[in-house]
């Protein structure tokens, strides 16, 4: 078991190194002549107007919130699915009630208009 995670740890380092190599190679091989016009933000060919990092559409937050609820609850479902053989029928039904509550929350969000884009 520890060996498994040792492998993952080494794989993380290697996976980070693999894309760094070509970028480093490009840094050595490619020309580097920056100037002010070249380094401008690429929008329409004109000087950019206003700040980019502004407030954005609130709908993105709403989707993220609904997603967060689902994501957290899904993690709890994985052990339930793995231990399925050892569960009595009542345990299965308890899991189903849990999923049903999740579905209920989705129906509530839908009804409240949280899933409408406009």
């Amino acid at each position, binding site marked *: 078991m520890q060996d498994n995670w040792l492998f993952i740890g080494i794989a993380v380092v290697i996976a980070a190194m693999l894309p760094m190599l070509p970028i480093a190679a490009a840094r050595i091989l490619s020309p580097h002549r920056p100037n002010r016009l070249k380094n401008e933000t690429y929008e329409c060919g004109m000087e950019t107007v206003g700040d980019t990092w502004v407030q954005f559409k609130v709908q*993105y937050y709403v989707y993220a919130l609904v997603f967060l609820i*689902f*994501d957290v609850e899904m993690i709890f479902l994985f052990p339930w699915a793995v231990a399925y053989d050892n569960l009595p029928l009542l345990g299965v039904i308890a899991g189903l009630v849990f999923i049903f509550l999740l579905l209920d929350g989705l129906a509530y969000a839908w009804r409240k208009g949280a899933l409408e884009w406009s």
Partner: protein
Amino acid sequence: MSFFEDPIKFLAGLLQDLLVSLNLHPIAITVINNIVGALIVSSVGLVIVIFLIWLERKLAARFQDRFGPNRAGPFGILQSFGDLSKLVLKEDVVPDAADKIPYNIAPILSIAAVVLVWAVVPFSVEWIGTDLNVGVLYIAAVGSFGILSVLMAGWASNNKYALLGAFRAVAQLISYEVPLIFALLIPVLLARSMGVNQIVGAQDIWYIFVVPVAFGIFFIASLAEIGRTPFDLLEAESEIVAGYHTEYSGMKFGMFMAGEFLHSLTLAVVTAALFLGGWRGPYVEQLPLLGPLYLFLKAGFVYFLIVWIRSSLPRIRIDHMLDITWKFLTPLSVVLLMAIALTDALLKEFGQINNTALYVGAMIAVNVVIALLALFAASRLNSRQRRQIKTFEPRPLAVPPKPAAPAAASTSEEASA
């Protein structure tokens, strides 16, 4: 043990003997073994991707009645190497307004997140990077880092198109993550294990034939996860230039592009492992070398479907894209999970769990019934929405100017004078 029976095991044995003969500490031997294994596993995907880019361009060209790349090497197979050398020699322009640290981390993360998935992909009976007992959860967790890289790239570029692309991408990716993970739960439930190799081992009948609807949900959601047409709004050229990687050039852009292809390949391989029986096929137990062949044939089939859909369908609108996942795929996948769990539990309760014919028949029946119900509900919902739209009043496009206004103004002026 001979080389041809199991080359990987043979070479691993040679390496082990060599390390032992060098009188190294046992911990050092484990670490070196792991480093070699991780290097092999993570470069497999990257090497395949070089040829995959050529294959995809060739296929896309054939779908559009063109030849595709056919100059560099036989059938243009060296095209990707030409592209690669060109990208290496291109200048890397970093905009002055960019936030340098996340700007430079993002392309690295976009590749690393996908390469890490290959650590748990089983290539053959015993050929697997590491047989993690939480493999499926690991795939879901590591895959999510890709979303982070997209948001980092878009935000750090300090460019409005890039930021819009990143917002769209994140909305799309997190929304499709929900049905994707629910569809992942179904093979986990059927195999009673989160280890990818155990799931492959449990597929005496491929899961696509046991739970076809789960396969469908997983396939559509993974199309969205890799941002392929019809879900390619995150880099809609006609609207937001190139989306989140607008400001990237040179090799950093190349990393995003390679990451995208690698992501497609990885999801095709994961689909093949979870639903199409992975390395399973005739004679694979005797000759493990056949395992990767079967795996990549199946993954190639899934990839072909992806390219086919890409060259056939137009892009869909963002609100439709979000409606498909939240109002159709998510409820469908949740209900499907509940129904399959209940069917499984009831069959076990009545002692019929080992009756394969009944088990598979019941599962398919449940799948078909739920799919038909879902399609019926979706068409009802759709027609209700269409009726609502019809009640809008028609609005004239151009309003004619009012001719009486200036005359009235002049008369009132005269009166006051």
